[in-house]
């Protein structure tokens, strides 16, 4: 009998280059902010633009997070996601109109309460619609990307047109609640109050999502399901149920994003979701399909870059995002943060 071969496992630390590689996407945000500072030159306009870029990025992230999770978990690509954004916006705005007395009052608590109610209504309704959407539209086409894309595009059109039928009109204008109008001055720069609120809400959603995904049992199942769905099912979890939950939650987030975006733009159209989808797709692609953190960083990059470029050279604003996507895909063809697929 021969002796067992020498077995001396070693635990090598991540090399410094590996660690930089992992952290690189997060580092891109401060790098971009710094580059913006150098390019713009004037600190006050830079501060204003940075805050509005962050606010825009946060709102895009809220809308994109659901899409990327749904893809990561169940390999479903939902082009109809934009419909939930539009629907959320219309429902939320209707509630805000209904609560006109609260939004016109000059008290911050009443205003916030009205917004919260609007968001709640929007999320409930989009969530409910998402449940039906998953059953009727998505479930029959699991596994076929081609059919998923076609069917969800069809559904997007139908829902958008239905919004036209129900609410009528092309554009609806609205005013922000009283206490959120105008701007505060900080270090000589004018910062719109609403944008600060948007940043706060976006950060809350991001850390809330991370908390749920990293620290709870359901988050564990979702993450495991993204990595290896067959194994999770073999362990006895009904992944389908989890998925329906994620789909509803993701669509409700889209509804929330819709309300936030409506208050940001102060005008809503049935096609707004469809227009947002362009930015959302860019964000999801550069972040890496299925990665919430990637979507977060991607959304901030897109928001900041769009605001900086719009200030420096207005005509290039939309093209700048395509440029950003190109550069990132050259650097990491799968997107900045890829989700390990072990199936």
């Amino acid at each position, binding site marked *: 009998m021969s002796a067992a071969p020498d077995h001396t496992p070693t635990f090598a630390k991540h090399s410094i280059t590996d660690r930089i590689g992992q952290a690189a996407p997060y580092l891109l945000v401060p790098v971009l902010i710094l580059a913006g500072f150098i390019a713009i030159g004037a600190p006050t306009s830079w501060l204003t633009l940075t805050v509005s870029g962050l606010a825009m990025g946060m709102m895009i992230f809220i809308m994109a997070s659901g899409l990327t999770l749904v893809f990561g978990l169940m390999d479903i690509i939902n082009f109809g996601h934009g419909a939930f954004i539009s629907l959320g916006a219309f429902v939320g705005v209707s509630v805000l109109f209904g609560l006109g007395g609260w939004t016109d009052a000059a008290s911050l608590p009443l205003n916030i309460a009205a917004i919260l109610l609007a968001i709640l209504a929007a999320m409930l309704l989009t969530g409910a619609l998402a449940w039906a959407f998953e059953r009727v539209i998505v479930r029959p086409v699991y596994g076929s990307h081609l*059919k998923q894309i*076609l069917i969800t595009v069809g*559904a997007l059109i*139908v829902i958008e*047109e*239905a919004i036209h039928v129900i609410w009528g009109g092309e554009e609806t204008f609205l005013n922000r609640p009283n206490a959120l109008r105008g701007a505060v001055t900080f270090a000589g720069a004018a910062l719109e109050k609403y944008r600060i609120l948007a940043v706060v809400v976006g950060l809350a959603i991001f850390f809330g999502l991370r908390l749920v995904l990293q620290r709870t049992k359901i988050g564990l199942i979702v993450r495991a399901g993204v990595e290896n769905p067959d194994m999770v099912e073999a362990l006895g979890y009904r992944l389908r149920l989890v998925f329906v939950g994620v789909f509803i939650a993701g669509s409700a987030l889209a509804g929330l994003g819709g309300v936030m975006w409506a208050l940001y733009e102060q005008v809503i159209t049935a096609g707004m979701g469809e227009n947002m989808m362009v930015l959302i797709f860019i964000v999801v692609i550069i972040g890496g399909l299925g990665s919430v953190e990637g979507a977060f960083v991607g959304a901030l990059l897109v928001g900041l870059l769009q605001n900086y470029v719009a200030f420096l050279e207005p005509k290039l604003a*939309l093209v700048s995002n*395509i440029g950003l996507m190109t550069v990132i895909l050259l650097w990491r*063809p799968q997107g900045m943060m890829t989700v390990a697929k072990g199936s």
Partner: protein
Amino acid sequence: MVRFLLSGDAPRSRILAVLLALVLVGLAFAPFIFPGVRALHTAATICIFILLVASYDLLLGYTGIVSFAHTMFFGLGAYGVALASVHMGRGWDALAVGTLAGALAATVLAWLIGLFSLRVRAIFFAMITLAVASAVAVLVSQLYQLTGGEDGLTYQIPRELTPAFRFGELFGVRLNGRLLNYYLVFFTCLALFLLLLRIVNSPFGRVLQAIRENDFRAEAIGYRVVVYRTAATCMSAAIAALAGSLYAIWLRYVGPDTTLSFEIMIDVLLMVVIGGMGTMYGAVIGATIFVLAQNYLQNLMGLAAEATAGLPLIPDLVDPNRWLMWLGVLFVLSVYFFPTGIVGRLRAGR
């Protein structure tokens, strides 16, 4: 001879063969059978959309890739002709230069997009094309000094192709430049359609179908899937651009709404799905039915809306502006229940 022209891809269904023959004869003699400016315009639109939809089917039906940038390529061809005609003046050379430049630009752009998205995951392609197409549409409306913005461009084409050029009468139909223009559109579309039929029935086309069915296996057999997918994308883009050039020559006008808008993309998707994915004849049937319905059914909806004006909700639902909603419903239903479209049904049910 017919077999050779059809590249051995016979209709394989009697009803389908009759329908195709009807469409062909109808389009070939449209100026004589259906007099009137509007009917001729409809016929030319059908020709051009058959070509556009067939080139899209090369991508969607044969290769299994979803693209949302097809109208962008269509628009590139159209704007190529328009810009050349505006800057070089009226003349055949302007048309030729514009057409070639448009097709070349479309091919290069398709190659670049393919390089970035198809290399990694085919599913990226749908999203990236959507983003790029919308960026191009915004760019076109913003660079109004060059493109005329939302108003578009009007320009002159050679006199031989305009109604002002007259040369006699035949069967009571005045022979003029517009007739020549129509036959330019018709024969170019026919030739390019037959070329597409040749492409999909060649060994190259078979490889595309293999990739559609199972890209992993196709790769394992030794075909470089990325190369084939990119090649199909470029070909499809080039032919779409040619269709766009024809449309620009026919309309003597280009604008974002007629060539670049997302609505046209949706229309093309619908035509492919309704006619039948994965068969070139689906494009013929789908485009013909759709364009006819678009031109004549919408009037009917307007009448229905007027007739039901007193009732709640119904007039809103049948308003001609809600045309797209019914198309969407039809679209979803046909993806579920008739994934092979009209042509697939006819072929299966013979």
